[in-house]
């Protein structure tokens, strides 16, 4: 065990007199005070955002509330493969699969519910989806609920949401994509 003895150094006269350092400290606080007093915008040191009145723009990949993407005919792109529900670490996605009337599509979600009170907004469901059917690009915060039941969002509500307009092309700008399942 290495024992290190640190010598106690007494303060020099310069330090013990306090005054020069007090003056220098005053210089620092006065610099901040007058900079914040006189300037606006990026010259300021202050970074505060007055939240309800000002809102900062979120990054492009901000994960907001989920939405389901529709095909051109308005039916969900989801094929009820359960990959999102399997990937979900919070077990918040509940899917009931049904047989699709279309020949090209095997299954469709009879029910697709997300419990927003359980969701941790990790985005794994988006990455797991092979159909680009679920995204988190709405930019919406989790809303407040009055009961636990209100926290469960169903298929119709999820389909009705739109992506943020500033979502870049590379990440998928359209709100409706051609409803052709991959591999056909």
């Amino acid at each position, binding site marked *: 065990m290495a024992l290190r003895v640190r010598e106690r150094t007494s303060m020099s006269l310069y330090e013990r007199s306090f005054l020069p350092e007090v003056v220098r*400290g005053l210089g620092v606080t006065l610099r901040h005070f007058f900079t914040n007093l006189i300037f606006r915008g990026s010259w300021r040191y*202050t970074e505060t955002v007055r939240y309800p*009145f000002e809102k900062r723009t979120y990054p492009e990949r901000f994960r907001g509330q989920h939405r389901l993407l529709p095909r051109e005919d308005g039916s969900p792109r989801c094929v009820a493969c359960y990959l999102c529900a399997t990937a979900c670490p919070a077990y918040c996605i509940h899917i009931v699969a049904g047989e699709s009337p279309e020949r090209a599509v095997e299954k469709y979600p009879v029910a697709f519910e997300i419990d927003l009170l359980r969701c941790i907004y990790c985005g794994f469901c988006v990455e797991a989806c092979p159909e680009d059917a679920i995204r988190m690009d709405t930019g919406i915060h989790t809303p407040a609920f009055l009961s636990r039941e209100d926290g469960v969002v169903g298929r119709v509500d999820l389909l009705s949401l739109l992506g943020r307009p500033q979502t870049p092309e590379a990440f998928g700008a359209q709100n409706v994509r051609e409803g052709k399942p991959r591999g056909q």
Partner: protein
Amino acid sequence: MASLLVSLLAFAAIVTFAMSLAALLTWMERRQSAYAQDRLGPTRAHFMTFRGKPFVLFGLFHVLADGAKMFFKESFMPKGADATLFRVAPIIGFATSLIILCLIPFGPDWVTATSASYPLQVARVDGSMLIALAVGSLGIYGTALAGWASNNRFAMLGAMRAAAQSVSYELALGLTLVGMMIATGSTEFSAVVDAQHGLVFGFLPNWGIVWQPFAAVLFLVAAMAETKRTPFDLPEGESEIIGYFLEYSSMGFGVFMLTEFIEVVVLSCLFVSVFLGGWQLPWFVGDTSSGFIFGSLFGPSAGWARALDGMVVFGVKVFLMCALQLQIRWTLPRFRYDQLMRLGWKNLLPLALANIFVTAVLVYVDPSLALLAIVGVAMVVGFALVVMAGPKRVAQPSHGAH
């Protein structure tokens, strides 16, 4: 009769000035500290909107909100408290501060057209500097009684600290003024202010701070300790003992808080009168004046214009001194108790005594005070050089594993 009326008017003027400035200081304390710490400060209190945004007026409504809050809180008195002393204690400190204000000349004598002269000073009494020190010492009774009457150990602890601190720093406070008494040959505020007229060396204001820069600094330190604000706020010590006003609520606490800010104003008034030339501003307001605001508009010869100019200059100086005190309060951390006592007894007191000795010698050698001014300016220049040169930075031993 007329002089009594003028005294009453002067009293109303200085008390209104001090009270409004103290109220403003509660806002300045928040706003100034916020800007110094890169925050925004109070921005919420409002009662109407302007262009869709809340009309906050730089947060000035917080002063009103504070007052309203204080009035509507429950006025609580703990069990076992001494009812009379508990109620009287806040008033004592408040009253003593106002008494000191009465001794401060806040403008030149108001000379009317009929060449009657009225002093802009509530009480012009001989030895008013000594009276100010004596009355200022009484202020500690309010604090000590508040702590004792509360029937609370922590309040008592705060009161004890306040008493010890006050006693320790009063000595230095009084002794730092002795230098100015020697230099001006008077212990009366208006005489001291009058002695600071004109220029020294033809370009520097002939103020006490030029003759006695060291005493001015010592006085400021001692007086800040007397106001019991950071870095000398051990009697409050909100993170450890809360302090002598621990049991006070409602306006009882409000008066303590207001007293604190009034004390800041009073200290600024004292400092401005003794070290910053009072209501005088060389080149503008003084003996050879061209007039300031009113003087330049209506001619400096008009007595009332000269008086108003003096009041404006005095007010601005006091305001700036208050701002400096707030800035110091938001720059420095709190002293430890033993450091506080060491600073008071082992540093300030001997230095104040040395200052008296040196001042007396310099004034004896050269009664025209030129030598005193030369030494004073040399000290300021030397100090500025030391600050600009900075310290010898010693390499700190690095922390962490090796």
